[in-house]
């Protein structure tokens, strides 16, 4: 349905380059003046249409996560010892859905309807009967969410309020990701899993998730190879910087779960 239209629309707006912003009229939803004419020339100037498209892209991910934890928490698959963690995550994802819907509406946009999801991805996973599968997809969705929001921050730079809110969601997803990764270790599913991502390792996640981790092995930041600056080691440097994903990359990652 309109999901595909949205994906293709976003693809048109924001192509392969993270900061390849549309050259449209600057729009200020708060009436706040742009920082200065010189600054606004340096900054990407995104229209409110572009901003609401970014927020609808985020909303799609939040719909996916919210539906996943709603079903997961009610399915009985979660160990009692871990239930408080997933109830908290479920609460946050539902709040993110509502927040994004209201923000899009406030900006004059139209929030997308929730897609329909198949969390078995055509029978490949059994997250609501096998706890290992539930944790694996949870980690996959949370790590994807972190990279997805990070990849869109630059597209929100002209609207301070929206940018700040997106960053505030972004770090919540990172808190979730860290917790779930460590739960997989604790429950014996991945002895290498830490709260942070080392290199481009997916650990014991299935190969279908590799796209979530590709590129995270980057050690060059701001044009500087950080390994030349400190002797903390390549792994620590890879862990210390989370990398973004483009909207197109994220759409491809979640596509198997959308029907």
């Amino acid at each position, binding site marked *: 349905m309109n999901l595909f239209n949205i994906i293709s629309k976003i693809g048109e707006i924001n192509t392969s380059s*993270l*900061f390849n912003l549309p050259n449209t009229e600057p729009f200020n939803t708060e009436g706040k003046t742009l*920082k200065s004419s010189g600054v606004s020339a*340096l*900054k*990407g100037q995104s229209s409110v249409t572009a901003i609401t498209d970014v927020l609808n892209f985020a909303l799609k991910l939040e719909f996916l996560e919210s539906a996943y934890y709603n079903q997961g928490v009610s399915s009985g698959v979660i160990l009692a010892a*871990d239930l*408080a*963690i997933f*109830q*908290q*995550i479920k*609460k*946050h*994802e*539902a*709040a*993110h859905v*509502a*927040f994004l819907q209201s923000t899009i509406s406030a900006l004059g946009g139209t929030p997308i309807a929730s897609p329909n999801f198949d969390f078995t991805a055509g029978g490949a996973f059994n997250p609501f009967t096998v706890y290992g599968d539930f944790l694996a997809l949870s980690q996959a969705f949370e790590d994807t969410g972190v990279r997805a*929001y*990070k990849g869109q*921050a*630059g597209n929100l*730079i002209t609207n301070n309020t929206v*940018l*700040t*809110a997106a*960053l*505030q*969601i*972004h*770090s*919540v*997803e*990172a*808190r*979730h990701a*860290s*917790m779930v990764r*460590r739960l997989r270790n604790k429950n014996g599913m991945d002895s290498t899993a*830490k*709260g*942070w991502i080392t290199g481009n390792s997916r650990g014991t996640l299935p190969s279908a998730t590799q796209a979530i981790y590709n590129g995270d092995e980057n050690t060059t*930041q*701001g*044009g*500087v190879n*950080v390994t030349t*600056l*400190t002797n*903390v*080691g390549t792994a*620590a440097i890879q*862990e*210390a*910087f*989370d*990398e*973004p994903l483009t909207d197109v990359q994220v759409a491809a990652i979640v596509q198997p779960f959308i029907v």
Partner: protein
Amino acid sequence: MNSNEKNEKDFLKQPIDRLGFFKMSGVALATTAVILSGCKKETAEPITTPTPSPSNNAVDLGSGDTGVLNYAYALEQLEAAFYTQVMATPFTGMTAAEIQILGDLKLHEIAHREFLKAALGASAIIALTPNFSSIDFTNRASVLGTAKAFEDLGVAAYNGAGKLLTDPNNLLLAGKIVSVEARHASVIRDLLNPSSADFAGDDVVTVSQGLDGAKTPAEVLTIAGTYITNTLDASHLPTT
């Protein structure tokens, strides 16, 4: 070279706004060791004769994106120094898992510190002198409680600073760091209260909207300043 690359190179060569130093009010906040009076960089103000005051010895973070990155650099210096001390003098009963985690955090914060120092180049502030006299490094609760405070503060600092940056490349770099700080905060909170909701607790993530903290530099430095011997002058940082 595309415009983003050019902006970044320009930024790396950008000197601190020295003239701006003389716009300071001269007010010294002796109790907080931080100068917080805001100053919009676009605002033209008459240059007055500077009068000697303790604030003239302050470490000026600078203005614009440089100032914001120096602000981040100051916080990363603080975190790196803290975990370096934690690992040099482990608290009583530190487990193997805690050694692994706190050791990783030390390395990550050093990586952040050294990266920001290099990115700032000649505009980087000096090496700051921490003041950890309030922390009992032999005591697990003291150390982890401080770690929790620092990590949550770091998350809120980067979240609040994003909007102050003008170059999307710098915003992305801050984004790459803040999510790692959030991963840290989650782990530390889980060490303190395992398997609870505290990893992203209602005390730090709003219940109604699911939003993490976002603080202004003034709010952050009021807290962080108690752990830093130097006086930091944040008065030239952008406010919007």
